[in-house]
């Protein structure tokens, strides 16, 4: 049984955070929004101001809504609106 999630950051958010990847302990499913709020409180993410950024979330490499369920073992990515094309 997995007891954490892999969290990825990209682009301007990655630069603000200062690293691109971390693991976060998670034993029970929660929503993407709840996970975002939980990591916002971490000291090492204090300067990134995650709560006040316009962000998108992907769960297991699929764009997701903020009320989508995150399960232990999932790969979660937070990133700013995309600008490809």
């Amino acid at each position, binding site marked *: 049984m997995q007891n954490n999630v892999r969290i*990825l950051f*990209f*682009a*301007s958010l*990655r630069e603000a955070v200062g690293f691109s990847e971390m693991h976060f302990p998670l034993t029970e499913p929660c929503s993407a929004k709840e996970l975002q709020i939980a990591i916002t409180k971490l000291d090492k993410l204090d300067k990134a101001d995650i709560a006040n950024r316009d962000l998108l979330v*992907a769960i297991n*490499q*699929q*764009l997701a809504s903020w009320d989508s369920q995150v399960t232990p073992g999932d790969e979660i*990515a937070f*990133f*700013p*609106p*995309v*600008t*490809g*094309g």
Partner: protein
Amino acid sequence: MELSNPNCQLNCIVQFDDFDIATEYAKLQLTPHCGAVVLFSGLVRQQFDGCLQGLELEHYPGMTELAMLKIAKQASLKFEIGAITAIHRVGILLPHDQIVLVGVAAPHRKDAFAACEFMMDFLKNEVPIWKKSHFYHQGSSQSAWVETKQSDVNAKDRWHGKITR
């Protein structure tokens, strides 16, 4: 996984290298039952009063390919088309460099044009790629992440609920 039209060939690639339009066109030209090919290429546009040095494109390896394929699958169901090629470059690109190619082969031009526009409108909004501009400003080299344009969001949103055929 999303459904797709099994009779439509989907070819979605993310790469650092440049692509050759003639090569991609030659492949699309051989698509069975097709009488039209539409190709779109997106280029690095000079900006900052001619002071753009280049663009740096970052992406989410793994998800980028999946997201491109998801859009191509939707297009294969929405339009009467026989093949889609989508190639997106990442890494450092210079002014006038090719960034993206979308090619569509279809029995008739209307669906080929429409599918090509559909692909680009969704590529700009739903594929995890980000551009950073590097430019000269007042004698020093600077950089800034490219902001999302509302016109790109609107271009995607116009497809919602739209019946094309």
